[in-house]
C-alpha cells in the first residue's frame, strides 16, 4: 500500500471514529478519546527513535512539555489557531530533539537513556523558573467555548488530535517502508555493521531524534486548551514518560501498528480505571503490564499475533 493510499484509508477510519463518537453525544467520550489519541501520537513518536533505531528515550515528558509550553508562550504573546500552534510546537521540540541528538547520540544503551532523563530534569528546571509561562505555580489557558463549523471546542480539539494521529501514523509507516526505515533498523541491529555497509548512522539518528521530538511536542501542543490549566509537575510527570515507553513495548516496537495497539489498549484501560477506580492506579496498571510483557512477550502484542500467524501457516 502506497503512503497516500494509507493516508486516505486512515483518514476515512478517523472520520468514521469522529462521526461515531459524535453520535454518542457525550463530551466525556471526546475527553477520553482525546487522551487516548494523544498517547497514540506520543507512543508513535517514541517508537520512531526507540523502536526503529533502538535508542531508548526516557525524556518523552520533556518533549511533550516543550510542546505544551510552546502553546502557553504563544497563547500569551501571539495567539495562533491550534493547528499552527501544533506546527510551532513541532518545530521547537524538533529542534530540541536535534540538539539532544548532537549532544547525546555518541552515547549508547543505558548512557543514552540516562542522558535523556537528564534533559527532562534540565528543561523542567528552566520551566519552573520561567515566570512568563507560569513558573512553578502553573498557567491558565482559557479556551473558547465554541469554534466555527465544528461547534463545541472540545470536539474540535479531538478532531485536531485525530488528524495529528493520522499524520503521525502515516509518517511512521512511510519511514518503515522506506530506505530510511532500513537504515534505522540497521542501527538498532548493529551500528558497527551499519556503518560498514555505508549507512550514515549519525545523520540517521539525528533525523530520528528530530522527528520523534517533533511529534512528541506536537502531541503536547493542544494540551493547555483541553486542560485549561498546566503546571510543570503535571506535564513533566511520570505518566507521559512511562506511557510513551510502555505503550510501544506492550503493542510491539517493530512496526507502526504496535504503538497504535498499545496506546489504544492502555489508554482505554486507564480511562476506564480513572472512572471506575481512581486515576492514581493508572501508572500502577501500566507498570504491571509493562513488567508482564517484557517477561512473557518481549515483542509485544503484534509479536505474539505474528508468531501465532506464522505457526498457522
Amino acid at each position, binding site marked *: 500500500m502506497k503512503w497516500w493510499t494509507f493516508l486516505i484509508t486512515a483518514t476515512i477510519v478517523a472520520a468514521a471514529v469522529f462521526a461515531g463518537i459524535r453520535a454518542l453525544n457525550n463530551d466525556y467520550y471526546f475527553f477520553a478519546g482525546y487522551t487516548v489519541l494523544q498517547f497514540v501520537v506520543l507512543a508513535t513518536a517514541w517508537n520512531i527513535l526507540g523502536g526503529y533505531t533502538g535508542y531508548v528515550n526516557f525524556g518523552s515528558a520533556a518533549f511533550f512539555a516543550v510542546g505544551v509550553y510552546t502553546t502557553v508562550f504563544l497563547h500569551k504573546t501571539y495567539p495562533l489557531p491550534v493547528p499552527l500552534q501544533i506546527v510551532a510546537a513541532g518545530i521547537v521540540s524538533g529542534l530540541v530533539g536535534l540538539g539532544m541528538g548532537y549532544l547525546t547520540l555518541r552515547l549508547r544503551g543505558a548512557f543514552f537513556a540516562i542522558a535523556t532523563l537528564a534533559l527532562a530534569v534540565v528543561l523542567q528546571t528552566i520551566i519552573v523558573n520561567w515566570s512568563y509561562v507560569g513558573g512553578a505555580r502553573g498557567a491558565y489557558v482559557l479556551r473558547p467555548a465554541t469554534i466555527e463549523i465544528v461547534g463545541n471546542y472540545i470536539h474540535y480539539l479531538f478532531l485536531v488530535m485525530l488528524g495529528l494521529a493520522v499524520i503521525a501514523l502515516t509518517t511512521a509507516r512511510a519511514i518503515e517502508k522506506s*530506505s530510511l526505515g*532500513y*537504515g534505522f*533498523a*540497521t542501527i*538498532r*541491529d*548493529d551500528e*558497527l*555493521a*551499519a*556503518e*560498514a*555497509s*555505508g*549507512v*550514515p*548512522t*549519525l545523520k540517521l539518528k539525528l533525523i530520528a531524534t528530530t522527528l520523534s521530538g517533533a511529534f512528541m511536542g506536537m502531541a503536547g501542543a493542544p494540551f493547555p486548551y483541553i486542560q485549561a490549566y498546566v503546571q510543570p509537575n503535571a506535564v513533566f510527570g511520570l505518566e507521559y514518560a512511562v506511557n510513551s515507553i510502555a505503550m510501544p513495548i506492550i503493542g510491539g516496537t*517493530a512496526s507502526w501498528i504496535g504503538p497504535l495497539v498499545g496506546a489504544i489498549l492502555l489508554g482505554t484501560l486507564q480511562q476506564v480505571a480513572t472512572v471506575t477506580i481512581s486515576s492514581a492506579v493508572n501508572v500502577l496498571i501500566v507498570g504491571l503490564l509493562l513488567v508482564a510483557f517484557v517477561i512473557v512477550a518481549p515483542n509485544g502484542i503484534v509479536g505474539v499475533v505474528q508468531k501465532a500467524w506464522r505457526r498457522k501457516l
Partner: protein
Amino acid sequence: MSAPLLDVAGLGKRFGGFVALDGIDLSIAAGERVGLIGPNGSGKSTLVNCLSGTLINEIGSVKFDGTELAGLPAHQRTRLGLARSFQLPRPFSSMTVGDNIRVPLIYAVNARSHGRLSESDIATRCDGLLGLVGLADRARDFPRDLTQVDMRKLELARAMAAEPKLLIADEAMAGLSGSEVNDIVELLIMLNERGVTVILIEHIMSAVMRFSKRLVVLVSGRKIADGRPDDVIRNPEVERAYLG
C-alpha cells in the same frame, strides 16, 4: 607506474600505553590478492579497524584510490569502495538474508551513484549476489536460521554488495571445516578475478597460502615481512614469531 589503490604510511595506533600499531607502511596495487597474517595480538584487526574507519589512528596516513581517509567516517570509506567483513559475523538480525544484502546496495552503491539505481536494479543485484555465494534459496530466511558457513557467506556477500574496489576479509573462515574453508577461498579468488582487490586476514595457513599472491606479516604492531608467500614463510624472523 600507476598510483597504489591503498597507500598506508607510518600508521600508528595506541591503546593507552599499549602500542597496537607501530609505523605500518603498506602499499597495495589494484587487483592484488594479499594475505595478512600474524600471531594473536599482532595488530591485524586493529589495522583493519583503522583502515575501515572503525578506529582512528593517531599517527600516519591512509590514502585510498587517491583520497586521504583521515577524518572520514566508516560509511564514507565504504562508499568510496573500501569494504570489510567482520571476524565474527554481524548480520542485521531483524532482517531477512535478502534485506541484509539490500542495505549496502541502498546505502553504498545507490548513494555512490546518486540514487540512480531503481528498485528492480537493486533486486537484480541482490539476487545475483545471493546466487554467487550460494544463498539464493535462503533470501527469505533470517540470519538466525543459517549455518555457520552460510553466515560467513552472508557476511562476505554483504561486504561485496557495497561493490568495493578493495575488500578486507577479516578471518572469514574461522571455525569452518576443510571443505567450507575451500568454498570461501574459491569465493574470494573468484571475486578477485572479477577485479576486486582482496586482503585476507586469516590464521588457517593452507587457505592463506592458496589464496595469497603476496603475504604481509605483522608482529607486535610492526610489519616484519612483505613479499611472495613462499619467500615470506621461510623468513627467519617470521619463523621465530610463529614457532618461538
